[in-house]
């Protein structure tokens, strides 16, 4: 399941909804991304996440179907926010439920890695030194590449 929204989400409530009534689920692995302060690099007050409506949903849906095909999952949820976010705000939730913990861990990490290289979001950071569009990191491409099929 895919949701792209401006509003915050409640990870506990999402977990309840995702697992309700499915007694084959033995483990749920979640990732919550949070707006953090890059101490040492440059301080941050807030940021704005711009996205490409339509393409975001399409890409997230493709990534999710890929994960469902590669691992035996019972349920899957991606919630991604856009708009203005402050330090400590939640940005993204990836939640994967499976009978087996290994599948849940692998699929969740796969989704998070791919999100960061494929989902059309762009960060505009505001700090005391001014504002700027954040540049992509090569390490994110490397993280996604480890899932490439050989």
């Amino acid at each position, binding site marked *: 399941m895919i949701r792209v929204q401006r509003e915050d989400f409640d990870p506990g409530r999402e977990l309840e909804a995702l697992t309700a009534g499915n007694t084959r689920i033995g483990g749920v692995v979640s990732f919550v*991304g*949070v707006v*953090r302060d890059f101490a040492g690099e440059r301080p941050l007050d807030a940021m704005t*996440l*711009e996205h*490409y409506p*339509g*393409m975001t949903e*399409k*890409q997230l849906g493709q990534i999710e179907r890929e994960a469902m095909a590669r691992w035996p999952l019972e349920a899957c949820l991606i919630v*991604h926010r856009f708009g203005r976010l402050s330090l400590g705000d939640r*940005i*993204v939730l990836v939640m994967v439920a499976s009978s087996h913990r290994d599948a849940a861990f692998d699929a969740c990490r796969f989704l998070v890695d791919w*999100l*960061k*290289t*494929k*989902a*059309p*979001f*762009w*960060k*505009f950071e505001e700090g005391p030194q001014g504002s700027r*569009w*954040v*540049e*992509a*990191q090569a390490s*994110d491409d490397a993280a996604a590449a480890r899932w490439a099929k050989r």
Partner: protein
Amino acid sequence: MKLLYFAWLKTKTGIAEEEITPPPGVTDVASLLAWLKGRGPGFAAALADLSAVRVAVNQDYARPGDKVRPGDEIALFPPVTGGRA
């Protein structure tokens, strides 16, 4: 053909969205970018370094040789920078 610009590509071109009819020689992503570059100084600046530009055709990532057709939705944007932890 609908063109969309995001992040600093929107800032540099000054355009978020436009309808265009490129000349007949524009048949793929590469020729579209080459033609756009010549449209004015904002476009020239935005497209000066094509290694920093990504293109989507109808909401899927596209490569230079991929075809573009009338009616397509073409988006230009920098490499994505979602949640960075």
